[in-house]
């Protein structure tokens, strides 16, 4: 009964979408937009209904039965709504609707023509996915007979970060659906120009900010909760979120050219299409079972074919529209080498290179698998190929903002650049020699990131840009990026990790660290047994305790390992228990000394703040 009601809601949403199209083709624009809003409303209602079913543990619904349990804490019951394939797909559709509805209200006054076409495309994206949802992945499918209890959710997924990581990611990469619709609309009505860029900017930006937050949350989750000891693994699922991020960062910068100088129209359109295409590609890759990953979702090749078809329809139609409605770029004139336009071009060159590398690295094993061959593509591939380009990219990031539009001004800036590089050389060399780590890659990484940081500070001082809202977004985001890379290099070269086995009262020593297993405690909580291992760690003069534990859950029968982390000013000491020997005498343990991990989080935070300030800047 409940399920039928929910299906009716979805059904009305689909009908409204069709009606919207009908009105659109009959030139009844207002009605078309209204129908779209109604469709969206019903999608939102059905999503909340799904949450309600989870909240009340209604096990007659298959999704609730498979993913929930009456003993779960409320927060996780609710989060269970989007912690499964069907529910997350409904979330996906809802966000497409939300962006569309928000746009239709906030953009009412300007540009009616653009609005009607944008909503038309947005509506059809909703429609296509709704049909896919209802036919193959309906979250409201019933289970008969009505089970008494659910199968319980994976305890690894019972985590505050699971509650927010997917929604933020979706608000990010699904939000690019609106970017796509806006671009297609502007192509058709031939208004891809600087006003369009001005109007579209906040929509791309907000999606970008959400996506950055989502990726950051994922890293934080992996590090703090999942006990993987690190924050990024070049895992195919992680890469799937990075692809639209890189494309959209390139897009944001290209739109600057479009905003200010009415340049790069075709390229902007292409990037916008690519960004959402990568969002869709990611959606396909993680759900279809073609990826071999630690993130392994529930894999179903059948669903894969459906998603694949949808993705190809959407992207193919977009490209065809692009080909037929290609905008006339203003001039085929060349741009000066040392101008803002050219540096924005270089920016795209590098970002797209990074994107290419990640796409190839992720997809290559899949392509090879068709020939029943395969290879592994792991971190060393990415690190090797990306590093040299990151160095150059950082340096260019320092020079770029100095450039002016349509001017060639390197000569006047040469002195500053020279002194900045000199300063960075000295600082990086100092770090290398003080730490006694004579490593070329480390040196270049430090050099380029320090250069960028100093360069930004100097620009600020020179032009008195500090805290001027106009410059704040760029300064924060670029400085954050430099800090991020700086911290990544320090972290990868100065961190320590050790796998070892240890018995009670035993001490393991290495470098200037000693670790002693004092004792083990056993506890019982409402839904698990816990074995807590109490360690005493000494590093130089610093003594502290770490208490990782292993939890054995009742329902479902699963074992998780809880990390214990002690944070110092720049770094973390981190222990996780891997296994208990069959004779329960020996513990297998992994210890990490994570150097400068906070620089990484701070760098990410600054990037996000930069994005947020850009949104505020628009209003101010």
């Amino acid at each position, binding site marked *: 009964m409940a399920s039928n009601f929910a299906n009716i809601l979805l059904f009305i949403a689909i009908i409204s979408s069709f009606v919207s199209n009908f009105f659109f083709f009959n030139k009844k624009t207002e009605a078309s937009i209204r129908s779209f809003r109604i469709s969206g409303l019903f999608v939102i209602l059905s999503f909340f209904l799904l949450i309600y079913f989870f909240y009340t543990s209604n096990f007659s619904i298959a999704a609730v039965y498979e993913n929930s349990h009456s003993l779960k804490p409320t927060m996780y019951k609710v989060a269970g709504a989007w912690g499964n394939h069907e529910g997350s797909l409904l979330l996906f559709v809802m966000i497409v609707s939300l962006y569309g509805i928000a746009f239709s209200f906030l953009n009412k006054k300007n540009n009616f023509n653009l609005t009607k076409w944008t909503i038309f495309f947005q509506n059809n994206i909703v429609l296509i996915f709704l049909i896919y949802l209802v036919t193959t992945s309906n979250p409201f499918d019933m289970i008969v007979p009505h089970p008494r209890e659910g199968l319980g959710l994976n305890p690894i997924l019972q985590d505050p970060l699971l509650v927010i990581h997917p929604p933020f990611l979706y608000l990010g990469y699904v939000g690019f659906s609106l970017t796509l619709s806006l671009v297609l609309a502007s192509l058709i009505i031939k208004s891809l120009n600087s006003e369009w860029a001005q109007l579209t900017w906040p929509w791309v930006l907000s999606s970008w900010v959400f996506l950055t937050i989502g990726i950051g949350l994922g890293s934080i989750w992996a590090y703090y909760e999942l006990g993987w000891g690190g924050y990024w693994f070049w895992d195919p699922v992680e890469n799937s979120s990075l692809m639209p991020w890189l494309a959209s960062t390139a897009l944001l910068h290209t739109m600057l050219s479009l905003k200010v100088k009415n340049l790069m129209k075709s390229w902007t359109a292409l990037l916008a299409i690519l960004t959402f295409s990568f969002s869709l590609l990611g959606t396909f890759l993680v759900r279809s079972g073609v990826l071999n990953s630690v993130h392994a979702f529930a894999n179903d090749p059948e669903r894969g074919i459906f998603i694949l078809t949808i993705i190809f329809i959407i992207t193919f139609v977009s490209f065809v529209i692009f080909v037929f409605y290609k905008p006339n770029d203003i001039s085929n004139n*060349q741009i000066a080498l040392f101008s803002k336009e050219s540096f924005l071009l270089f920016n795209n060159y590098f970002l797209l290179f990074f994107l290419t590398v990640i796409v190839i690295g992720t997809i290559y094993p899949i392509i*090879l698998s068709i020939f029943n*061959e395969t290879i*592994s593509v792991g971190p060393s591939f990415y690190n090797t190929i990306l590093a040299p380009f990151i160095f150059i990219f950082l340096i260019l990031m320092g020079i770029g903002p100095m450039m002016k539009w349509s001017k060639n001004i390197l000569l006047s800036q040469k002195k500053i650049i020279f002194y900045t590089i000199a300063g960075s050389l000295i600082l990086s060399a100092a770090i290398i020699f003080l730490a006694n780590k004579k490593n070329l890659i480390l040196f270049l990484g430090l050099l380029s990131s320090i250069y960028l940081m100093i360069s930004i500070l100097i620009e600020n001082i020179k032009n008195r840009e500090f805290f001027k809202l106009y410059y704040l977004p760029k300064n924060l985001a670029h400085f954050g990026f430099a800090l991020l890379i700086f911290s990544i290099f320090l972290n990868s070269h100065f961190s320590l990790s050790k796998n070892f086995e240890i018995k009670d009262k035993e001490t393991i020593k290495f470098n200037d660290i000693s670790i002693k297993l004092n004792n083990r405690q056993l506890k019982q909580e409402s839904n698990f047994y816990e074995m807590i291992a109490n360690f005493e760690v000494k590093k130089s003069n610093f003594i502290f305790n770490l208490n990782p534990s292993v939890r054995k859950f009742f329902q479902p029968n699963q074992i998780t390992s809880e990390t214990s982390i002690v944070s110092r000013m720049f770094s973390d000491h981190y222990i996780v228990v891997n296994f208990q020997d069959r004779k329960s005498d020996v513990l297998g343990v992994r210890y990490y000394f994570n150097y400068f991990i906070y620089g990484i989080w701070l760098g990410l935070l600054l990037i996000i703040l930069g994005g947020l300030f850009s949104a505020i800047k628009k209003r101010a």
Partner: protein
Amino acid sequence: MKIFKLVFLILFLIIGQTLANEEIEKKTAQITKNLRCLVCQGQSVYDSNSDFAEDIKLYVREELTKGASEKKIYSYMVSKYGDWILFNPPLSYKSIFLWLIPFLFILFGAIIIYRKVKIEK
């Protein structure tokens, strides 16, 4: 004086051995991070504590102690388990496109930029 020398020698050997062990541990970690755990989803041998991973770790450590080169160890692993076990794809006919396509991008991108950008004196 002789005792002094003896003590010094013993100390030297112990330290040397410890350092050597340090080196071997580091190398073992480095190598096993680049080997895929075949019974896990996407984890490296280093990260996994399955029986299989433990066996491989033991083997690598022993071989390093015997003085085997990294190359020898990797080629042994590949001879038993195929290229799939390596996380770092070797440059072979199979992985040629992996490196080629980024390179092509660099080339074509550079050409496009070269055409667009005017170098003023």
